[in-house]
Each structure stands twice: as C-alpha cells, then as structure tokens.
C-alpha cells in the first residue's frame, strides 16, 4: 500500500483489479479546504485515462512490477518482443498502446514492465535517436515559421526541427514532448 501523498509519476497502482500507471500527479489545496492529490492515471490494459482525487493520507494499492529488457521485433495487431536473455517471445496488444509505434525501432531493446507474469507496459526511453526519412529543403529567408520545419522520422513520427537538418541525418528527440533536442553526428 502507498499513501496518496507519496505517489509520484510513474508509480503503478491496482484500482478495481486493473493496473494503472500514474501519468500526472499534482497537489491541490483550496484556500479554505482540505488538500488533495490530483492523479491522472492510464489503464495499462485499455489505455483509458482516469482522473481521480485522493486525500493525501489515503492509501492506495501499489503493484510490484518487474522490468526486463526485450528486443522489439515487429508489429501486426500486436507488438512482438523477444526477451534478450531467454529469447522467449511475447506480444502486447496495440490497443491501448497505439502511440508507442511512433517510438519502436526494429532490433532496438526496450524495458518491458511485467506484472503477474504478463507484459503491461513498454517503457520508451526519455530521449531516443531517429533517422530523418523525409525532410524538405529549407526555404531561404523563411523566418515566419520561427526557423523550424516539419520532418518525418523512421518510425513515422513527425517533429519540428531546425532548418539545417537534412534527410538521412540522425536527431535526438525528447520522446515525452516529441521535441527535437540536437543533431547526432554519425
């Protein structure tokens, strides 16, 4: 069990027998009233987002999860991964995890969160390197767009990058806000 006041982003909770990940946590305290913890939770089976408030002293059920490294293989209706130590293959339904495909690179290793011997979440690293697969040439003197342009990355993700980035170059991306960080030299 965990006190609501001690919960942080990334904690896994069991609510009505469903596993949830805390994706946002904010303390709220009205000028004349009790303090609450405002949680935004993602159901790891359905992807549905749940908002709830708890008094900070209330306890919730946290779940013990293990994370293990898996190699990403391919996608059909499911994401297919292979355990890098045991070669055991697992699949995770795309449903509820649709946006992950934008960050999955074939052959790359990812941490998979396992609970009750079943995979419940794919951990996307905070920063990842991607190859730019589509980029238009910068238009000279274009300052209207603030010196950036959209490009498509190898996974299909579209982000804005500085004008000097060219097709085939590699860029480091913040996967949380999907923003360009820097160019990576080969």
């Amino acid at each position, binding site marked *: 069990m965990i006190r609501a006041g001690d919960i942080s982003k990334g904690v896994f909770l069991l609510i009505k027998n469903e596993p949830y990940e805390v994706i946002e946590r904010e303390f709220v305290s*009205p000028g004349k*009233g009790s303090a609450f913890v405002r949680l935004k939770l993602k159901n790891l089976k359905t992807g549905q987002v749940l908002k709830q*408030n708890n008094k*900070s002293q209330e306890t919730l059920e946290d779940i013990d999860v293990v994370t293990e490294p898996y190699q990403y293989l391919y996608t059909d209706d499911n994401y297919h991964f292979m355990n890098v130590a045991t070669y055991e293959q697992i699949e995770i339904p795309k449903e509820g995890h649709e946006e992950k495909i934008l960050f999955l690179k074939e052959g790359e290793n990812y941490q998979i969160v396992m609970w009750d011997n079943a995979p419940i979440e794919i951990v996307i690293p905070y920063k990842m390197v991607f190859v730019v697969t589509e980029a238009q040439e910068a238009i000279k003197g274009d300052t209207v767009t603030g010196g950036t342009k959209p490009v498509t990355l190898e996974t299909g993700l579209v982000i804005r990058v500085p004008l000097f980035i060219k097709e085939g170059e590699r860029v480091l991306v913040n996967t949380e806000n999907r923003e360009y960080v820097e160019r990576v030299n080969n």
Partner: protein
Amino acid sequence: MKNEYGPSVLHALLSSRSRFFQATRSFFIANNYLEVDTPVLAPFCIPEPSIELFETQKLVLKFPKGKLYLVSSPELWMKRLLALGIGNQFQISKCFRNNEVPGTIHLPEFTMLEWYAVHKNYTDNIGFTEDLILSVLHEMDIPGIIQYQGNAIDFSVPWNIMTMQEACSEYSGIDLSKLQKPSDFYDVLSAKHIEYHRDDTWEELFHRLFLLEVEPSLPAGKPLFLTDYPKNIKTLAKEASCCYSERWELYIGGIEIANCYTEAAVPGQIDFFFEEESKRKAQQCIVIPPSDNELQELMRKPGFPDCSGVALGMDRLLMILLDKKHISDVAPFSSFLL
C-alpha cells in the same frame, strides 16, 4: 548560496515587485484606505483546520514564556482595528503557512494583500477588485490582454461572474442546492465513479467533486469571480438566507488569487465557527494554538462594523502578470524555503 538568478534578472524582478507594490499602495491611498501594519507573530489564531501554523517559543531571560505563532493572515489583527473603529484599511504583509502542498503556487512564506471596506459587501468588492488590478496593470505598463503560459487572459471589464451553483451545474451536471448532507453526495459520487469515504466531511466530499470536475473546467480566458460558496464550507463569511455564504474567490488563469467575504455579523454563526473549527483543528492539526477568544467576542458585539474583507495573494498575481510558471520565480530567495 544558491545562484538561481543572475544579478540582472534579480534586479529586474526586484524592480517589478517594487512597482507592483507601489501601484497597489497608490490605488488604496487614492481611495482613502489607511495602510496599517500589524505583527506577524500572535499568541493565538483564528481556527482553520486546513492550515498548519509555524510555532515558535518566546523566551524571557532565557526562560520559556509561552508559544507564539507566525500568522497565516493579518485577519485577526485587522479585525481588531475594525472593532476599534479604524475604518477602511489595507495591508501588504508576509504570511506563513506550514505544510503547504508541493507545486507551483504555494510558498511557506508569501506576501498577502488584505483589505477591509466598511459598510460594503462582497458584491461591492467585485468592482473594486477589478479597478485595483486594472490600475496596477496600467501603472506597470502591462497591456489589458496578457499571455500566461501560452494562454491569453483578457482583463477588459466586466470580468466573468459565476455562482458555485451555476459552475457545478455547468461542469459537473449536479444541483448543488440538493446536496445538503454528506450522505446526499454518495449516489452522485458513485454514479461518477469518484471514490469517497463514509467518514468524509461535507467539505471533503464537495472538494472531491469540485477539484476533479469543476475547477479544472472553469473558463480561464478572463478573470473569474466564483461566488456564493456553499455555507457547509465553514468560514467567517456571512451566511445568506438559503444555503450559501456571501463569499467569492477570484480565479485568474485558472489559479485562485483572492478570497472575499461579506464578514459574518450574527453571533450564533461566529460562535459556531470558532467552537466547531477549534474542535476540528484540535483533531486534525499538528500545531494547535489557542483559539482567539477575544476576537470572537469583538466580532459578535454590535459595535463591530458591517464590512467586506479581501485577501489577495500578491506573489500569485505577480507570477501571472510576469508570465512565470512557479511562484518562487517572483519571490526572491523563496526557493531556499521549499
């Protein structure tokens, strides 16, 4: 020393704060309010169970001589001044609250503007507060439409006014007037899959709903006066005939900036507040100062003037005007206290 600001940033911030305080003072002085200053220490408090106070020990010749508490607002002193016949008054002072929740809008020590207008009520203070903030914007050369964290806030009058009853109906689909007892909430919360406990107070049940569904939905494009709070949230605001108190909170950019009451004048309500809230404070708080019985007596006497008081968080307002995300960005050295 934490080097959080370069000298030029610090100078700019101090200049902004100085102009902000000067503009505020000028407005009140032009409106014939007396600037008062009262102690930040007190031997007692107005009992508010949701607020934890800082406690310190008074020494005389190195012998302990009782406890003193840093005030959470200057209310207890300013109301003494009202009882003594000092009329319209304002104060900009440091206030202290312990056990504040982590986040971007709370500091353990912060700057509060508090004012009292005699023979006025909470609706009179709506227009006055608009005038105050518009005057401050003008003096600080801030335009009437500002950007706060990427969202526009339009200060042109009149600002939005919404009663709590309307807000709950609009954003939560509930009829607040029908929720008079704690048990009235159970079906409503269950239907919305909002967790609650049978030992929750009315105030806690209400805030479970308000903080989840209503407050995040409040319109933020203009400042908003959210008025007529349920009287089941116990305060020293005058209770209107039905089920609400003559009270508003000003929200700017979705953030609570100020709180206003028509001050309670009925002895029964004042006694009930002091007695019930003292009990709850004793149950809920870690630091439990004596209740301010003298103020309780003064407020229930016929000589205490009809008036309306407002408390406004100066750091929060400045944070919005300067488009800063964290309150500590506008209060020099406050990050040492976090």
